[in-house]
């Protein structure tokens, strides 16, 4: 009797063991399942459309007819990232305004935002694009992941359509910006709508109080650090310098912090000449040492604030406007928050803020450095209404509508005609941010970049939390080697 009881409980326990454990793991399995199938159909989609341009049109028409009937309005879905402010968000407002004025009333434009942290957005997008059931008709893609998503077959090449679009061919788009949306196969996978530059935002009022120049232009890293030290000494309640340093802030940590530092040393992430990733260099150690110094001397924000996903917003929407932060290494777009309908309206920002270029490590040529990124509208390979989506993109990214978006968002335009428009140039900092673009560097257009980038974030966070630069760099080298393969790395 007792034995039977034991056996019974053992059997139940084993069943429970698998059940409880796989409550967690079965998610992975299921996702993988759809993933495999999704990948296949994505493949078929690209091949078919690549072969003949009319393929997409037919598929679109039959799809629409089959599912909705001719009389029904076609719904064009646009997916973008909502960082938590919902209908107050710039993109939501813009999509609403543009779709109201859109002349073709036979389609309905529907925003389908993904509310996620910056890092999660790209994973969610990738999952959505894998399947025909979940892919939107238009998706906003950060140019850093565009190449990767294109290699995965998730996106529709737009070359044939672009050829027939006058705005694209007549020089309205700045030629250099087309590079950001061209994947490694030479095809264009998106229409860019903004770009950005990066530099040092600083609060002039605080600088004055600390006895620092209001027209600040540091010549090298030491001058940046010494300004931060002065702030710490004179204004102990103020955070001297804020840089994104956590894994949770995703690409912002890689690009605004690490790459701005690394490229400032003269080193790069990827060696274009040999086509190899640089896994060991003095530049890596120097860049990490800067992060280490900021944290060791407590010149940065408390780690509990900077290591979470909201860090960027905390800095630009709270600390900087409230006079609790002196210097912020960040992108040109943060001023979008301060506009009357932005997330943190701050009318005085034009006079209080300064935007200094980020100097190179020792002041070596070209003196300052910035990285340029940007976003594009792309059509997923699994989209149901590709032609309607394309027509809407052409309308949404014409001169007038692009201008509205970049002004509202505080971004830099990718259109030459908008750049000349007085309505654009009179916005504070637009001139200066555009000027920094002259020395702009771009992230490697490699499909492994997003994976390497997450290793950068891990490396920076580990240094911020006390690991030595050498140890963190060593781990980075191992991880990158594993990702790209031993034949694709080089040490300097």
């Amino acid at each position, binding site marked *: 009797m007792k034995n039977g*009881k*034991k056996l019974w*409980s*053992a059997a139940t*326990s*084993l069943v*429970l*063991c*698998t*059940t*409880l*454990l*796989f409550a*967690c*793991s*079965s998610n*992975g*399995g*299921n*996702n*993988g*399942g759809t*993933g*495999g199938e999704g*990948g296949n159909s*994505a493949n078929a989609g690209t091949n078919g459309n690549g072969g003949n341009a009319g393929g997409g049109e037919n598929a679109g028409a039959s799809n629409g007819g089959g599912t909705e009937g001719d009389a029904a309005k076609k719904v064009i879905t646009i997916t973008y990232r909502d960082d938590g402010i919902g209908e107050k968000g710039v993109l939501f407002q813009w999509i609403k305004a543009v779709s109201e004025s859109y002349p073709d009333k036979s389609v309905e434009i529907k925003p389908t935002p993904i509310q996620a942290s910056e890092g999660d957005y*790209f*994973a969610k997008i*990738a*999952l959505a694009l*894998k399947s025909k059931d979940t892919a939107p008709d238009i998706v906003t893609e950060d140019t850093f*992941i565009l190449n*990767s998503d294109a*290699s*995965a*077959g*998730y996106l529709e090449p737009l070359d044939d359509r672009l050829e027939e679009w006058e705005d694209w061919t007549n020089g309205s788009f700045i030629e250099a910006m087309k590079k950001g949306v061209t994947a490694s196969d030479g095809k264009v996978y998106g229409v860019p709508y903004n770009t950005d530059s990066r530099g040092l935002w600083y609060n002039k009022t605080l600088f004055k109080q600390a006895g620092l120049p209001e027209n600040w232009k540091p010549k090298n890293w030491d001058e940046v650090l010494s300004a931060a030290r002065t702030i710490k000494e004179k204004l102990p309640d103020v955070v001297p310098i804020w840089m994104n340093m*956590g*894994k*949770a802030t995703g690409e912002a940590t890689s690009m605004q912090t690490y790459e701005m530092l690394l490229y400032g040393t003269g080193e790069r992430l990827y060696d274009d000449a040999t086509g190899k990733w640089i896994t060991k260099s003095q530049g890596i150690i120097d860049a990490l040492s800067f992060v280490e110094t900021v944290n060791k001397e407590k010149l940065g924000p*408390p*780690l*509990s*604030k900077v*290591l*979470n996903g909201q860090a960027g917003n905390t800095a630009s929407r709270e600390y900087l406007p409230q006079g609790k932060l002196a210097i912020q290494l960040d992108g040109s777009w943060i001023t979008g928050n301060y506009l009357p309908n932005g997330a943190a309206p701050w009318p005085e920002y034009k006079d209080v803020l300064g935007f200094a270029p980020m100097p190179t490590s020792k002041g070596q040529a070209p003196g300052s450095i910035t990285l340029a990124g940007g976003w594009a509208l792309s059509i997923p390979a699994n989209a149901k209404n590709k032609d309607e989506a394309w027509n809407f993109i052409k309308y949404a990214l014409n001169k007038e509508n692009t201008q509205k978006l970049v002004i509202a968002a505080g971004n830099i335009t990718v259109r030459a005609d908008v750049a000349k428009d007085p309505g654009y140039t009179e916005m504070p900092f637009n001139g200066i941010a555009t000027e920094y673009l002259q020395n702009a560097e771009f992230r490697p257009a490699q*499909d*492994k970049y*997003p*994976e390497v980038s*997450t*290793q950068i974030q891990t490396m920076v*966070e*580990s240094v*911020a*939390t006390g*690991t030595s630069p050498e140890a963190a760099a060593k*781990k980075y080298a*191992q991880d990158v080697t*594993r990702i790209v393969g031993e034949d694709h790395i080089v040490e300097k």
Partner: protein
Amino acid sequence: MSSIAAAAPAKRRKTWTWLYFLLPSVAIMLVFFIYPILLTVFYSFTNLALTGEAAKELNFVGLDNYARMFEDPTVRSSIWNTLVFLIGSAVIGQQVLGFLIALLMKHKNRWFRRIIGTIVLAGWVTPEIVCALCLYSFFGDEGTLNAILQSFGFSTVTWLYTIPMVTVILANIWHGTAFSMLVFQAALDDVPSEIEEAAVVDGASKWQILTRVTIPYIKDTIMTNMMLVTLQTLGVFGLIYAMTGGGPGTSTTTLPIFMYNQAFVNYQLGYGTAISLLLLLIGIILSLFYIRSMKE
């Protein structure tokens, strides 16, 4: 004689009916548990990725993902963190605390039992994510704990960053203790009072009764509960992810968090599935250990 002959086919028929009734649940288990597990095993031998070239073409990479686990120092630290979290929050925390509460409640009056029971159960019925947010706001920089400290004139502590592992362990204890308490309550109620009375008559102290009579009597329950709590805790993801995100650095990165990071942050689903199998392996080893010690 004839009654025995008649009983045999009846018994066999009974076995078959038993199987029919079981069939639907077996089918559900096959589709929703066994199939994903097999898929997971399959994908763990591939380079399945969320984006990039590998997302387009699925390739077999043999044992690469497993070889990688052996080289990866984060796997080692994640296993370590998982064990610390497991022993701290499940084996010691929930188990011991749950047992103590159940013991203290024994033979107390009905109202006392009800009130204490309800309070402890509140943590158990709270959904994991709500629980995580509650404790995040408790331990946060401007959270309740710091507010209390401040009102007494102490300086604040960034709990989630100075002692992250302790905070998530406490959170899991708060969340899960009720389960152990309920199990032990039932078990303690089953201990016949005659045995304990006999021990008292023999002159045993309270401590002796507890260690020599009560605990040996409910040993099986302790082991079963230990196994259930262990398996539950091994898979905890949401609680840690919402409170610390596995950070700062990798100080609270347990295996489920690490698996998520590999699969959905680094986009390497293949490697992620391999890690999930490692997690299953650890679960099986621990279960076998518990079952073995139950038999002894």
